[in-house]
């Protein structure tokens, strides 16, 4: 499990650099990059921190990943998670922080 950073969408704000619990993200030429993606834990802290939806979570092929990419966007208490599959189909799930897990 790791992340992928879209250089086109990245605005170089560096918020992901500061938040990564592994210190794995750096700014290179004013764009965020992850030189060693295999060190990522997959916690998605950076995915949620990025206001540009430039960072996507994915599952490595060695753990059965099928190429889907998941980004997140926050609005107040709402988190919108969008999964985009390699065939272009996408699905968005909305979670409200005020709603508890029921299980």
């Amino acid at each position, binding site marked *: *499990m790791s992340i992928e950073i879209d250089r086109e969408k990245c605005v170089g704000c560096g918020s992901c650099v500061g938040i990564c619990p592994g210190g794995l993200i750096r700014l290179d030429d004013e764009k965020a990059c992850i030189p060693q993606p295999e060190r990522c834990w997959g*916690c998605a802290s950076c995915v949620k921190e990025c206001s540009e939806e430039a960072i996507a979570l994915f*599952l*490595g092929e*060695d*753990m059965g990943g099928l190429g889907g990419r998941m980004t997140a966007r926050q609005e107040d208490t709402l988190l919108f998670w969008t999964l985009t599959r390699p065939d272009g189909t996408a699905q968005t799930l909305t979670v*409200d*922080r005020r709603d508890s897990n*029921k*299980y």
Partner: protein
Amino acid sequence: MDLQLRYLNTDFLIIGGGTAGCWAARAFREHSNARVLIAEKANVKRSGCLAAGVNALNAYIAPGKTPQDYVDYARADAEGIVRGDLLLSMAEGLNRVVASLEALGLTILKDEQGRYVTRGWRNVKINGENIKPILAEAAKAKGHISILNRVNVFDYIVKDNRILGAYAIRVDRPVLYVISAKAVLCATGGAAGLYQPNHLGFSRHKLWYPPFNTGAGLAMGIRAGAEMTTLEMRFIALRCKDTIAPTGTLAQGVGARQINALGEVYEERYGLTTSERVHGTVMETQAGRGPCYLQTIGISKEQDEDLLKAYLNMAPGQTLRWLESRRMPSVQNVEIEGTEPYIVGGHTASGYWVDTNRETTLGGLFAAGDVAGGCPQKYVTGALVEGEIAARAAVKYMNDEIAAPDADAIEVVKRKLESHFIAQPTLTVDALEEAMQAAMDEYAGGIRAFYRYSDESLVIADEKIRELVQQSEQLSATDMQELVYILELSERLTLCRSVIAHLAARKETRWHSFAEHTDYPEKSAEWALYVNSRLENGEIRIITRPLVREGEVYEH
């Protein structure tokens, strides 16, 4: 590279701004006006094991039950090897911290009468996606708390068995800090990455516990001669295959049973303690009845939808898996597997040997959360209570003087760090880490050894780890992050030696899978005691101690 020296003074140093650390800072300021410094390797907002979130508080006492019930449960799950004094003092604070978390903004599920909805009698359901930011903000909101992010503490400063502070380096700049303090709390979390993980390739950091929790606090304590307890009681999590996502939400939340490939529910064959659930899964697989699953086929579409959201709040990779494969749990059972072993005192009883106030055997050094031993099943809320207890006890040191640092000792530490910047291109941290994990896996009871080991295999494991310790002295770094990786490997190697010594010392099998000794496959009444250890002149000395019950106050 030359390291720049910086001297810092504080009253109460907290090493690790995770769950226990943030809460301890807050609690300390409620009892004292003294200064607090939190030194955090990452960023307190998302550091530690709660980075991704959590969707239940697993240590809570429902109406009708008592703290003693919690102690009894934890004792039974650990087959008796717990500290009654620690468990009871923790259990008494659980519901109070749950209420505090809610007051700070954590969403907790309630019924129409406004009562918490519990899962079983020890668990409340939450939306914990933002629990770590809440804890970090709670610490920041109190005055006189300084937070240093990206600062990696790697050794204690100790004189005459009294802690005086700690050494740290910046992760992003060539700075060596000498931090002096009146009292210190170790709250660095437990250790992952000692054993070969489930995935060996690109996804090798997809662990249950954070790969960034390297056992720093435990290793620092071992090196400084602190007494450790029950390191042989490893923790192995039963998880969703591949994504290593939690199974409790499926097992307890939607009532999914553990079944083998024949569709048989096998839980009852092996017992229902935490370790027996892992053991049963291993045994079924070895008997040719694997793989094993959580039986989710038949749950409703609505439950599918709820599960997708529930996992987003703690393990988004599992939601990603379900969505991209288009195979939801209602139509496909969720395969399960055991992880590699961890040393984590929030789940089992391994960690520092502490007194009832959570003070270690080094004067002025306290431990809370996953580094503190004797008190399993503490989870998030128990770690918070431990942070409170330690912080309250640390106040007694606030009238002491801060000791001046020893210039000669600092120079030795500085030179040793700088020696790693001299190029030795033949060895890499990754190669030695892989060798360490392979040795632990094969000879000290990892996944691929079905968690089993013998006296002979442990001798081999110890030899290999000792060789790796020698080799690690020659590792080289080109920047501070690489220096941190060298220090982290050294921490893991230090801890591996102690784990091996503990596994060898307990000559019984009290916990299947967690400590499965093939030379002594049965539980023995003789071993109803603590196995402790202390590093003395480079050798690990094993100390056994009688069990401590609740109602007693334990002093060193």
